[in-house]
Protein backbone atom coordinates (compact mmCIF):
# COMPACT_ATOMS: atom_id res chain seq x y z
CA UNK A 1 0.00 0.00 0.00
CA UNK A 2 3.04 2.25 0.38
CA UNK A 3 3.02 3.30 -3.27
CA UNK A 4 -0.67 4.14 -3.18
CA UNK A 5 -1.22 7.68 -4.45
CA UNK A 6 -4.76 8.71 -3.59
CA UNK A 7 -6.75 10.85 -5.96
CA UNK A 8 -8.27 13.75 -4.12
CA UNK A 9 -10.54 16.46 -5.50
CA UNK A 10 -10.95 19.77 -3.74
CA UNK A 11 -14.13 21.75 -4.24
CA UNK A 12 -13.33 25.29 -3.12
CA UNK A 13 -14.85 28.74 -3.27
CA UNK A 14 -13.17 31.41 -5.33
CA UNK A 15 -12.97 34.10 -2.66
CA UNK A 16 -11.48 32.38 0.35
CA UNK A 17 -10.04 28.93 -0.11
CA UNK A 18 -9.01 29.33 -3.76
CA UNK A 19 -7.28 32.57 -2.81
CA UNK A 20 -5.86 30.88 0.29
CA UNK A 21 -4.40 28.16 -1.93
CA UNK A 22 -2.94 30.90 -4.12
CA UNK A 23 -1.28 32.27 -1.00
CA UNK A 24 0.15 28.83 -0.22
CA UNK A 25 1.74 29.08 -3.64
CA UNK A 26 3.10 32.59 -3.27
CA UNK A 27 4.45 31.57 0.16
CA UNK A 28 6.10 28.52 -1.52
CA UNK A 29 4.71 26.15 1.11
CA UNK A 30 4.99 22.59 -0.19
CA UNK A 31 2.19 20.07 0.03
CA UNK A 32 1.23 16.74 -1.47
CA UNK A 33 0.38 16.88 -5.16
CA UNK A 34 -2.53 14.44 -4.88
CA UNK A 35 -5.09 17.19 -4.40
CA UNK A 36 -6.51 18.94 -7.45
CA UNK A 37 -8.74 21.94 -7.16
CA UNK A 38 -12.02 22.79 -8.84
CA UNK A 39 -13.03 26.41 -8.47
CA UNK A 40 -16.55 27.48 -7.59
CA UNK A 41 -17.83 30.98 -6.95
CA UNK A 42 -19.06 29.96 -3.51
CA UNK A 43 -19.51 26.86 -1.37
CA UNK A 44 -23.21 27.55 -1.77
CA UNK A 45 -22.81 26.57 -5.43
CA UNK A 46 -21.44 23.09 -4.64
CA UNK A 47 -24.08 20.51 -5.41
CA UNK A 48 -23.88 17.44 -3.17
CA UNK A 49 -24.27 15.31 -6.31
CA UNK A 50 -20.84 16.51 -7.43
CA UNK A 51 -19.28 14.86 -4.40
CA UNK A 52 -20.91 11.57 -5.36
CA UNK A 53 -19.71 12.08 -8.92
CA UNK A 54 -16.17 12.56 -7.68
CA UNK A 55 -16.30 9.24 -5.86
CA UNK A 56 -17.89 7.45 -8.80
CA UNK A 57 -15.19 8.82 -11.08
CA UNK A 58 -12.50 7.34 -8.89
CA UNK A 59 -11.71 9.88 -6.20
CA UNK A 60 -10.39 8.36 -2.98
CA UNK A 61 -10.96 11.51 -1.03
CA UNK A 62 -12.60 14.91 -1.27
CA UNK A 63 -11.97 18.29 0.29
CA UNK A 64 -14.77 20.85 0.45
CA UNK A 65 -13.65 24.24 1.62
CA UNK A 66 -14.85 27.82 1.68
CA UNK A 67 -14.94 31.02 3.66
CA UNK A 68 -15.23 30.94 7.43
CA UNK A 69 -18.74 31.62 8.77
CA UNK A 70 -19.54 35.35 8.53
CA UNK A 71 -16.81 35.88 5.90
CA UNK A 72 -18.72 34.71 2.85
CA UNK A 73 -18.21 37.03 -0.10
CA UNK A 74 -21.89 36.59 -0.79
CA UNK A 75 -22.75 36.95 2.92
CA UNK A 76 -24.58 33.66 3.36
CA UNK A 77 -23.59 31.03 0.79
CA UNK A 78 -21.38 29.18 3.25
CA UNK A 79 -24.14 29.11 5.88
CA UNK A 80 -26.46 27.43 3.40
CA UNK A 81 -23.64 25.08 2.42
CA UNK A 82 -23.10 24.23 6.08
CA UNK A 83 -26.71 23.13 6.47
CA UNK A 84 -26.45 21.13 3.27
CA UNK A 85 -23.32 19.34 4.49
CA UNK A 86 -24.85 18.60 7.88
CA UNK A 87 -27.73 16.81 6.18
CA UNK A 88 -25.51 15.15 3.61
CA UNK A 89 -23.16 13.80 6.26
CA UNK A 90 -26.02 12.48 8.36
CA UNK A 91 -27.48 10.68 5.35
CA UNK A 92 -24.12 9.24 4.26
CA UNK A 93 -23.38 8.04 7.79
CA UNK A 94 -26.77 6.41 7.90
CA UNK A 95 -26.08 4.59 4.63
CA UNK A 96 -22.64 3.49 5.69
CA UNK A 97 -20.78 5.63 3.19
CA UNK A 98 -17.41 6.59 4.60
CA UNK A 99 -17.50 10.28 5.42
CA UNK A 100 -13.97 10.25 6.78
CA UNK A 101 -13.00 10.42 3.13
CA UNK A 102 -14.40 13.94 2.92
CA UNK A 103 -12.73 16.85 4.68
CA UNK A 104 -14.98 19.83 5.20
CA UNK A 105 -13.05 22.93 6.14
CA UNK A 106 -13.07 26.70 6.25
CA UNK A 107 -9.85 28.19 4.89
CA UNK A 108 -9.65 31.93 4.43
CA UNK A 109 -7.69 33.86 1.82
CA UNK A 110 -5.09 34.59 4.49
CA UNK A 111 -4.59 30.99 5.57
CA UNK A 112 -2.05 29.76 3.05
CA UNK A 113 -0.26 27.60 5.57
CA UNK A 114 -3.52 26.21 6.80
CA UNK A 115 -4.49 25.12 3.31
CA UNK A 116 -1.28 23.10 3.06
CA UNK A 117 -2.06 21.58 6.43
CA UNK A 118 -5.63 20.69 5.41
CA UNK A 119 -4.32 19.05 2.23
CA UNK A 120 -1.56 17.15 3.97
CA UNK A 121 -3.68 15.81 6.80
CA UNK A 122 -6.32 14.75 4.29
CA UNK A 123 -3.75 13.01 2.08
CA UNK A 124 -2.23 11.23 5.08
CA UNK A 125 -5.65 10.08 6.25
CA UNK A 126 -6.68 8.84 2.80
CA UNK A 127 -3.35 7.03 2.41
CA UNK A 128 -4.11 5.20 5.65
CA UNK A 129 -7.64 4.38 4.52
CA UNK A 130 -6.35 3.12 1.18
CA UNK A 131 -8.20 3.23 -2.12
CA UNK A 132 -11.97 3.61 -1.84
CA UNK A 133 -12.47 0.00 -2.88
CA UNK A 134 -16.09 -0.49 -1.88
CA UNK A 135 -17.27 2.49 -3.90
CA UNK A 136 -15.13 1.60 -6.89
CA UNK A 137 -16.44 -1.98 -6.81
CA UNK A 138 -19.98 -0.69 -6.70
CA UNK A 139 -19.36 1.44 -9.78
CA UNK A 140 -17.48 -1.28 -11.64
CA UNK A 141 -20.14 -3.82 -10.91
CA UNK A 142 -22.74 -1.45 -12.27
CA UNK A 143 -20.71 -0.71 -15.36
CA UNK A 144 -20.26 -4.45 -15.97
CA UNK A 145 -23.97 -5.01 -15.57
CA UNK A 146 -24.67 -2.30 -18.05
CA UNK A 147 -22.27 -3.78 -20.56
CA UNK A 148 -23.78 -7.21 -20.05
CA UNK A 149 -27.31 -5.92 -20.53
CA UNK A 150 -26.22 -3.93 -23.57
Amino acid at each position, binding site marked *: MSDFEPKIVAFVCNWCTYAGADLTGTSRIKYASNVKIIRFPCTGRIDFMLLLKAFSNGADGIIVSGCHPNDCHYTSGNFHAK*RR*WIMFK*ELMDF*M*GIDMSRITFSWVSAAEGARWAEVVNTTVTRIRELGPYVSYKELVNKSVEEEVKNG
Partner: protein
Amino acid sequence: MDNLILRAKELLENKTVQVVIGYEAGPTGVVRPAFISDPANADSLIYDERCVQNLAVYLTKPEVKHLGRIAIVSSLPVMRSIMMLISEQQISYDEIVVLGISADGVLLDIADLSVMQGYIDKSDLSNPVKYKELLAELKKLTPAEKFEYWQKELSKCIKCYACRQACPMCYCTRCTVEVNQPQWISVQSNAHGNMEWHILRAMHLAGRCISCGECGRACPVGIPCHLLTMHLTDQVYNYFKVYAGTSEKMNSVMSTYEPNDKESFIV
Protein backbone atom coordinates in the same frame (compact mmCIF):
# COMPACT_ATOMS: atom_id res chain seq x y z
CA MET B 1 -67.88 8.07 9.29
CA ASP B 2 -71.38 9.40 8.81
CA ASN B 3 -70.23 12.86 9.68
CA LEU B 4 -67.64 12.75 6.90
CA ILE B 5 -70.20 11.59 4.38
CA LEU B 6 -72.69 14.25 5.45
CA ARG B 7 -70.07 16.95 5.27
CA ALA B 8 -68.86 15.78 1.86
CA LYS B 9 -72.41 15.76 0.54
CA GLU B 10 -73.10 19.20 1.91
CA LEU B 11 -69.93 20.62 0.33
CA LEU B 12 -70.75 19.10 -3.03
CA GLU B 13 -74.43 20.01 -2.90
CA ASN B 14 -73.89 23.64 -2.04
CA LYS B 15 -71.12 23.75 -4.65
CA THR B 16 -68.48 24.82 -2.15
CA VAL B 17 -66.27 22.25 -3.80
CA GLN B 18 -66.41 20.39 -7.05
CA VAL B 19 -64.67 17.26 -5.92
CA VAL B 20 -64.01 15.44 -2.67
CA ILE B 21 -60.86 13.35 -2.42
CA GLY B 22 -61.14 10.60 0.12
CA TYR B 23 -60.98 6.85 0.49
CA GLU B 24 -63.33 4.12 -0.61
CA ALA B 25 -63.28 0.36 -0.66
CA GLY B 26 -62.97 -1.13 -4.11
CA PRO B 27 -64.95 -4.14 -5.31
CA THR B 28 -62.44 -6.53 -3.74
CA GLY B 29 -62.35 -4.62 -0.52
CA VAL B 30 -59.03 -2.93 -1.21
CA VAL B 31 -58.98 0.65 -0.05
CA ARG B 32 -58.32 3.12 -2.82
CA PRO B 33 -58.52 6.85 -3.30
CA ALA B 34 -61.93 8.16 -4.25
CA PHE B 35 -62.64 11.26 -6.33
CA ILE B 36 -66.24 12.11 -5.73
CA SER B 37 -67.95 14.87 -7.64
CA ASP B 38 -71.55 13.65 -7.41
CA PRO B 39 -73.08 14.01 -3.92
CA ALA B 40 -74.95 10.78 -4.52
CA ASN B 41 -71.67 8.90 -4.55
CA ALA B 42 -70.45 10.32 -1.25
CA ASP B 43 -71.87 7.36 0.62
CA SER B 44 -68.96 5.26 -0.56
CA LEU B 45 -66.52 7.32 1.51
CA ILE B 46 -64.85 5.45 4.33
CA TYR B 47 -62.28 6.25 6.91
CA ASP B 48 -60.59 3.59 9.02
CA GLU B 49 -57.12 2.37 9.88
CA ARG B 50 -56.64 1.04 6.35
CA CYS B 51 -56.84 4.58 4.96
CA VAL B 52 -53.20 5.50 5.12
CA GLN B 53 -52.37 6.81 1.66
CA ASN B 54 -51.23 10.43 1.62
CA LEU B 55 -53.90 11.97 -0.57
CA ALA B 56 -52.15 15.33 -0.72
CA VAL B 57 -50.17 13.99 -3.64
CA TYR B 58 -53.19 14.66 -5.88
CA LEU B 59 -53.45 18.34 -4.99
CA THR B 60 -50.66 19.35 -7.34
CA LYS B 61 -51.71 17.17 -10.24
CA PRO B 62 -53.01 19.33 -13.12
CA GLU B 63 -55.76 16.84 -13.98
CA VAL B 64 -57.07 17.06 -10.41
CA LYS B 65 -56.64 20.82 -10.07
CA HIS B 66 -58.63 21.07 -13.26
CA LEU B 67 -61.72 19.67 -11.55
CA GLY B 68 -62.19 22.81 -9.46
CA ARG B 69 -62.17 23.41 -5.75
CA ILE B 70 -61.22 20.32 -3.79
CA ALA B 71 -62.23 18.99 -0.40
CA ILE B 72 -59.68 16.53 0.87
CA VAL B 73 -59.89 13.97 3.65
CA SER B 74 -56.87 14.82 5.74
CA SER B 75 -55.12 12.95 8.47
CA LEU B 76 -52.21 14.72 10.15
CA PRO B 77 -49.65 13.83 7.43
CA VAL B 78 -52.01 15.15 4.77
CA MET B 79 -52.50 18.38 6.68
CA ARG B 80 -48.76 18.77 7.05
CA SER B 81 -48.32 18.08 3.34
CA ILE B 82 -50.88 20.77 2.62
CA MET B 83 -48.96 23.18 4.84
CA MET B 84 -45.75 22.39 2.97
CA LEU B 85 -47.43 22.79 -0.41
CA ILE B 86 -48.81 26.16 0.65
CA SER B 87 -45.42 27.28 1.92
CA GLU B 88 -43.83 26.18 -1.34
CA GLN B 89 -46.52 28.04 -3.24
CA GLN B 90 -47.86 25.00 -5.03
CA ILE B 91 -51.40 25.42 -3.79
CA SER B 92 -53.33 28.11 -2.00
CA TYR B 93 -55.57 27.37 0.95
CA ASP B 94 -58.44 29.03 -0.90
CA GLU B 95 -58.40 26.23 -3.46
CA ILE B 96 -59.17 23.52 -0.93
CA VAL B 97 -61.35 22.51 1.97
CA VAL B 98 -59.65 20.37 4.58
CA LEU B 99 -61.76 17.54 5.96
CA GLY B 100 -59.47 16.94 8.91
CA ILE B 101 -59.53 13.60 10.66
CA SER B 102 -58.03 13.24 14.11
CA ALA B 103 -55.72 10.41 15.11
CA ASP B 104 -58.69 8.52 16.60
CA GLY B 105 -60.71 8.92 13.42
CA VAL B 106 -62.98 11.81 14.39
CA LEU B 107 -63.94 14.44 11.83
CA LEU B 108 -62.38 17.75 12.82
CA ASP B 109 -63.82 21.16 12.12
CA ILE B 110 -60.94 22.77 10.22
CA ALA B 111 -62.60 26.09 9.52
CA ASP B 112 -59.51 27.83 8.21
CA LEU B 113 -55.76 27.75 7.94
CA SER B 114 -55.21 28.94 11.50
CA VAL B 115 -57.35 26.10 12.88
CA MET B 116 -55.29 23.61 10.90
CA GLN B 117 -52.15 25.32 12.15
CA GLY B 118 -53.43 24.98 15.70
CA TYR B 119 -54.15 21.28 15.22
CA ILE B 120 -50.70 20.64 13.78
CA ASP B 121 -49.07 22.67 16.55
CA LYS B 122 -50.49 20.46 19.25
CA SER B 123 -49.78 17.18 17.48
CA ASP B 124 -46.75 14.95 17.90
CA LEU B 125 -44.74 15.63 14.77
CA SER B 126 -41.91 13.18 15.24
CA ASN B 127 -41.69 10.03 13.15
CA PRO B 128 -44.38 7.40 13.83
CA VAL B 129 -43.37 4.96 16.55
CA LYS B 130 -43.03 1.87 14.34
CA TYR B 131 -40.53 3.71 12.16
CA LYS B 132 -38.65 5.10 15.14
CA GLU B 133 -37.94 1.56 16.22
CA LEU B 134 -36.69 0.55 12.78
CA LEU B 135 -34.48 3.62 12.62
CA ALA B 136 -33.03 2.88 16.03
CA GLU B 137 -32.24 -0.67 14.95
CA LEU B 138 -30.47 0.50 11.83
CA LYS B 139 -28.45 3.08 13.70
CA LYS B 140 -26.97 0.35 15.85
CA LEU B 141 -25.26 -1.25 12.85
CA THR B 142 -21.60 -0.64 12.08
CA PRO B 143 -20.82 1.48 9.00
CA ALA B 144 -19.91 -1.62 7.01
CA GLU B 145 -23.14 -3.35 8.04
CA LYS B 146 -25.11 -0.25 7.14
CA PHE B 147 -23.45 -0.15 3.73
CA GLU B 148 -24.20 -3.79 3.18
CA TYR B 149 -27.79 -3.39 4.34
CA TRP B 150 -28.52 -0.51 2.02
CA GLN B 151 -26.69 -2.06 -0.90
CA LYS B 152 -28.77 -5.17 -0.50
CA GLU B 153 -31.99 -3.18 -0.29
CA LEU B 154 -31.16 -0.72 -3.05
CA SER B 155 -29.99 -3.39 -5.47
CA LYS B 156 -33.65 -4.41 -5.66
CA CYS B 157 -34.65 -1.02 -7.01
CA ILE B 158 -36.07 -1.14 -10.53
CA LYS B 159 -36.16 2.65 -10.94
CA CYS B 160 -39.91 2.70 -11.37
CA TYR B 161 -39.96 5.95 -9.34
CA ALA B 162 -43.13 4.93 -7.51
CA CYS B 163 -41.53 6.44 -4.39
CA ARG B 164 -41.40 9.75 -6.20
CA GLN B 165 -44.89 9.53 -7.65
CA ALA B 166 -46.44 8.73 -4.29
CA CYS B 167 -44.79 11.62 -2.48
CA PRO B 168 -46.77 14.86 -2.23
CA MET B 169 -43.53 16.81 -2.00
CA CYS B 170 -42.12 15.36 -5.23
CA TYR B 171 -44.26 17.63 -7.36
CA CYS B 172 -41.54 18.82 -9.74
CA THR B 173 -42.70 18.60 -13.33
CA ARG B 174 -39.16 17.69 -14.26
CA CYS B 175 -37.12 15.62 -11.85
CA THR B 176 -33.33 15.65 -11.72
CA VAL B 177 -33.34 12.06 -12.97
CA GLU B 178 -34.84 13.31 -16.22
CA VAL B 179 -31.99 15.75 -16.77
CA ASN B 180 -29.43 14.43 -19.21
CA GLN B 181 -27.24 17.52 -19.61
CA PRO B 182 -25.37 16.41 -17.55
CA GLN B 183 -26.67 12.92 -16.83
CA TRP B 184 -26.75 13.18 -13.03
CA ILE B 185 -28.30 9.76 -12.47
CA SER B 186 -27.85 6.83 -14.81
CA VAL B 187 -30.99 5.73 -16.59
CA GLN B 188 -30.56 2.01 -16.01
CA SER B 189 -31.16 0.50 -12.64
CA ASN B 190 -27.91 -0.72 -11.20
CA ALA B 191 -26.46 -0.77 -7.73
CA HIS B 192 -24.56 2.47 -8.10
CA GLY B 193 -27.21 4.45 -9.93
CA ASN B 194 -29.90 3.22 -7.57
CA MET B 195 -27.91 4.44 -4.61
CA GLU B 196 -27.39 7.85 -6.22
CA TRP B 197 -31.08 8.13 -6.91
CA HIS B 198 -32.05 7.36 -3.34
CA ILE B 199 -29.46 9.76 -1.95
CA LEU B 200 -30.74 12.46 -4.25
CA ARG B 201 -34.33 11.81 -3.29
CA ALA B 202 -33.59 11.87 0.42
CA MET B 203 -31.54 15.06 0.14
CA HIS B 204 -34.26 16.78 -1.84
CA LEU B 205 -36.71 15.89 0.90
CA ALA B 206 -34.48 16.99 3.76
CA GLY B 207 -36.48 19.44 5.82
CA ARG B 208 -39.52 18.82 3.62
CA CYS B 209 -40.47 15.23 4.44
CA ILE B 210 -43.51 15.05 6.69
CA SER B 211 -43.00 11.40 7.69
CA CYS B 212 -46.08 9.87 6.07
CA GLY B 213 -44.10 6.85 4.88
CA GLU B 214 -45.94 6.78 1.56
CA CYS B 215 -42.74 6.29 -0.48
CA GLY B 216 -41.96 3.06 1.36
CA ARG B 217 -45.54 1.80 1.01
CA ALA B 218 -45.52 2.56 -2.70
CA CYS B 219 -42.32 0.66 -3.41
CA PRO B 220 -43.25 -2.49 -5.35
CA VAL B 221 -40.08 -4.30 -4.31
CA GLY B 222 -40.25 -3.36 -0.66
CA ILE B 223 -37.26 -1.05 -0.25
CA PRO B 224 -37.65 0.84 3.05
CA CYS B 225 -36.71 4.08 1.31
CA HIS B 226 -38.94 6.04 3.72
CA LEU B 227 -36.35 5.35 6.41
CA LEU B 228 -33.86 7.51 4.54
CA THR B 229 -36.09 10.56 4.54
CA MET B 230 -37.36 9.87 8.03
CA HIS B 231 -33.82 9.66 9.28
CA LEU B 232 -33.22 13.13 7.88
CA THR B 233 -36.46 14.34 9.44
CA ASP B 234 -35.03 13.21 12.78
CA GLN B 235 -31.78 14.97 12.05
CA VAL B 236 -33.46 18.17 10.91
CA TYR B 237 -35.21 18.29 14.24
CA ASN B 238 -32.06 17.32 16.07
CA TYR B 239 -30.02 20.14 14.51
CA PHE B 240 -32.53 22.83 13.73
CA LYS B 241 -35.45 22.09 16.03
CA VAL B 242 -38.09 22.23 13.33
CA TYR B 243 -40.45 19.81 11.70
CA ALA B 244 -41.63 20.19 8.15
CA GLY B 245 -45.20 21.16 7.42
CA THR B 246 -45.75 23.29 10.47
CA SER B 247 -46.06 26.71 8.92
CA GLU B 248 -47.49 28.29 5.82
CA LYS B 249 -44.43 30.54 5.74
CA MET B 250 -41.42 29.81 3.61
CA ASN B 251 -39.23 28.34 6.28
CA SER B 252 -37.65 25.33 4.69
CA VAL B 253 -34.58 24.21 6.56
CA MET B 254 -32.47 23.93 3.44
CA SER B 255 -33.28 27.40 2.15
CA THR B 256 -32.69 29.21 5.41
CA TYR B 257 -29.94 29.23 8.00
CA GLU B 258 -28.97 30.48 11.42
CA PRO B 259 -25.45 31.87 11.79
CA ASN B 260 -24.90 29.68 14.83
CA ASP B 261 -25.99 26.38 13.28
CA LYS B 262 -23.93 23.79 15.09
CA GLU B 263 -21.86 21.08 13.48
CA SER B 264 -18.75 19.28 14.61
CA PHE B 265 -17.11 18.04 11.43
CA ILE B 266 -15.99 21.18 9.59
CA VAL B 267 -12.35 21.94 10.40
